[in-house]
């Protein structure tokens, strides 16, 4: 198992290095001039030259890349802005701050959004799928399938404003969605995140309900389930002890990958509800063409996704010995 994990981690490391190199050179080959973007209204050639020097844009591109890459591990100096300690993801000239500081400041919102959202979409998705399988062909099955279908066809940027208009503006049931650090105000954090959690989960739960339904039905037709029933075990016991357990392995895989995606920033949800997480930071970076911020968020998100991939692989390896051998 250890060898398996080491192999996966090394593979991920190679992917990350390639990703950093490709994205760095791709960004810096764009026609966008970061110095011009950072030069304010009264921009003069002198100011432009000064900004170019400050941003080290006068250095050859390979040297700029080396400074960036080595800075990830040993840190980097940014003149009067000071020393950027490792892991140094660069300096955002638009906001006069180190990229890592921005990521660290925004990540708690993404974390809370991901945890709450994932709890809802897993619970509701699996629950709907089980109801549909339990009541196969009946009204409850059709209703659960329909709910899942509606969820899959709905977009967050449509459902979000609608939910806010209804629950915040008209009914006054909920406060304006916002991320309030749970360490400051746990109740405020909970109420402020109810809508973002719920709306984000809608697009995920349909996938789970359909998967769980079909996997459960598949499991229920397996020989070992029939054998268990033949031995006189109760339906409920067989359902929970054997069928659900057998259906869970693929669900864990999907859940792990989805977690990786939401932990790396749920862009549309964060922008729709004004939650200042990693996805929101990505949008800001793109809008402002803040290349180092873009790069930093991209690398961080990619590492998150790769990390969850490894965790999923490990979990799958634990559940299924064939994976370890392979």
């Amino acid at each position, binding site marked *: 198992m250890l060898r398996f994990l080491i192999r996966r981690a090394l593979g991920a490391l190679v992917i990350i290095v390639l990703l950093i190199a490709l994205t760095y050179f791709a960004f810096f080959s764009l*026609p*966008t001039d970061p110095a011009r973007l950072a030069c304010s209204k*009264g*921009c003069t050639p002198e100011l432009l030259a000064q900004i170019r020097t400050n941003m080290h844009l006068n250095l050859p591109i390979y040297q700029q890349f080396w400074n960036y890459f080595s800075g990830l591990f040993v840190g980097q100096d940014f003149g009067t802005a000071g020393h950027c300690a490792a892991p140094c993801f660069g300096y955002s000239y638009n*906001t*006069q701050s180190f990229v890592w500081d921005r990521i660290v*400041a925004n990540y708690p919102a993404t974390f809370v959004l991901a945890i709450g959202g994932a709890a809802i979409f897993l619970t509701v998705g699996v629950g709907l799928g089980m109801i549909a399988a339990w009541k196969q062909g009946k009204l409850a099955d059709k209703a659960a399938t329909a709910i899942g279908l509606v969820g899959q066809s709905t977009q967050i940027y449509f459902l979000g404003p609608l939910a806010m208009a209804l629950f915040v503006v008209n009914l*006054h049931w909920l406060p304006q969605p916002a991320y309030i650090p749970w360490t400051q105000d746990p109740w405020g954090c909970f109420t402020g995140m109810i809508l973002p959690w719920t709306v984000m989960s809608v697009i995920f739960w349909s996938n789970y309900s359909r998967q769980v339904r079909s996997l459960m039905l598949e499991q229920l037709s397996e020989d070992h389930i029939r054998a268990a029933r033949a031995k006189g075990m109760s339906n409920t016991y067989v359902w929970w002890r054997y069928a659900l357990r057998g259906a869970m392995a693929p669900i864990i895989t999907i859940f792990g990958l989805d977690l990786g995606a939401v932990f790396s920033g749920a862009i549309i949800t964060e922008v729709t509800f004004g939650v200042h997480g990693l996805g929101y930071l990505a949008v*800001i970076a793109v809008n402002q063409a803040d290349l180092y911020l873009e790069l930093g968020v991209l690398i961080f998100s990619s590492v998150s996704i790769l990390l969850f991939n490894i965790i999923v692989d490990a979990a799958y390896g634990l559940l299924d010995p064939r994976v370890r051998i392979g």
Partner: protein
Amino acid sequence: MPALVAVSALTLTACGGGGTSKAGTTGAQASASVQNFLPGTAADSVGPAPAIPGAVTGGTAHDIENSGFDYLDPSQQYVNNQQEVGSLYSRSLTGYKTDPATGKVTLVGDLATDIGTTSDGGKTWTWHLKDGLKFQDGTPITSKDVKYAVERLYEDYQTQGPVYFQTWLSGANYRTTYKGPSSGTDLPDSVISTPDDKTVTFHFQAAHTDASYAASMSNITAIEKSKDDGAKYNAHPQSIGPYMISNYQAGKTLTLVKNPMWDPKTDPIRHQYVDSWVFDLGIDNQLMTQRLMAGQGDDKYAVSMALNADGPSIKTIESDPQYASRTMNKFLPFVDTYDINMTRVTDLNVRKALATAFPVANVQKINGGNATGEIAGNLVSPTVAGWKDTDPLGIKANPAGDPAKAKAILQAAGKLNTTIVYAYSNTPTGQQVATAVSDALTQAGFNVQAKPLDTTSYYTQVGKADNGFDLYRTGWAADWPMASTVIPPTLDGRLISDGGNNYSHYNNPAMNSEMDRIGQITDINTQDAQWMQLADKILATDIPQIPTYYDKYFNVYGAGLGGVGYNQVLGTIDLNSIFVKK
């Protein structure tokens, strides 16, 4: 002697404003004859600021912004909303005082006892500081702190604020003459002298008759040397205004609380009605508009300083009477233009045909209509002293454009099928405008090649001296309400460069000389009038730009706020007069 004798009596419009339900009905034509931007006296510069009728103290006011404040360091603030938020915790040598009864705006001394004096026609300027000025830690403010604030503008990292004082003192390459206080030296007395703790004198290289106005910019302030840690100062600027920073998370939130060291008797401009200010940063434009319209919870006490309501909501706000009493619709200092690249389009007849065919009304409509921009006849905003409602190209007379007439002009000049490379920012609005412009110009007999440019690199590309395009949109705003900050920066041919602001690459030596002459006129009233005449003369003679519309601010604010005024100079909500209704 007072340096500025008189600023022209500008007939500024009472466009929109709180209580107007129909935006655009109170535009440039509907005038309220308010004399604005006149230089005030020493008596006008004495605090406290005139009380706002009905104002009460207490409560928390909120502001919702689409983006974060990139710069809190007043030395680096140039964007209008940053300057406005800066005015809550920072002050300049001079500033603008608004009479709440008449709306009249007067230039007064802010840190200084008056708007400054010059003894030699504008080359040497002296300001005296008021008594009772303190930093937030209680340290008295002296003239050395003002000198230090200007000296730090020479530091390498100072790249965002205005450069007027630096270049006036030390030339365009001012950093080559002095490296800033971190170099361990001061600027010599021959450049800035501080004969005593209350007096600071600036020795410019040439006469600058509008220095009193330039001294109102955010970076002509006082900075406490012991608190300055270079670029990092941006995160914790020390207050000298009515509020000070208590919490700041870049791009997310900013909280200001009362500064106990601020003495209202020293300040003729600002109030300290609310207990605190909370700025909610980085909120999507649509969400921001919804929140302001709904006005629930804290949003009842919220404004958005400089951002317009989102397009689809504007019609609702205009048509629903419930928003009328809390809608603000005012001119911004910006004028949108379409620049003709003079180095490529050298034939005057071709430029004339472009201006004649250009579908200004359609472009204005696509960009939001009268609520967010009023059709412009010239290059100077109505918020600028000396502005006149002129129309040298006949744009206001026929805003729809006249492709048939343009075709006749081209035909007579033998220029039919002239190729025009039209560059535009590749946004949904930009695409719609491109279609409208291409259609109109094609009808006029041009061969139009529309080139979409990436939004983030748009100004990088059109800002190149050799950009390869013939026609493209730009915009410009006055830095202070005089056209001296509009005409030379955008039309002086000696400023053509990569990354410069003369986007049309207009270079007429006769006009350049005129700019030099007008800039030396000591009577500001005359100067303002002549800038306006020159702007029209340039348009009529050479047509380097096609003015399209005067930009306007349009948004709603929370019903729980009182004293919501408008800063005409910056083009933002005036935060300094706001109070929370009881």
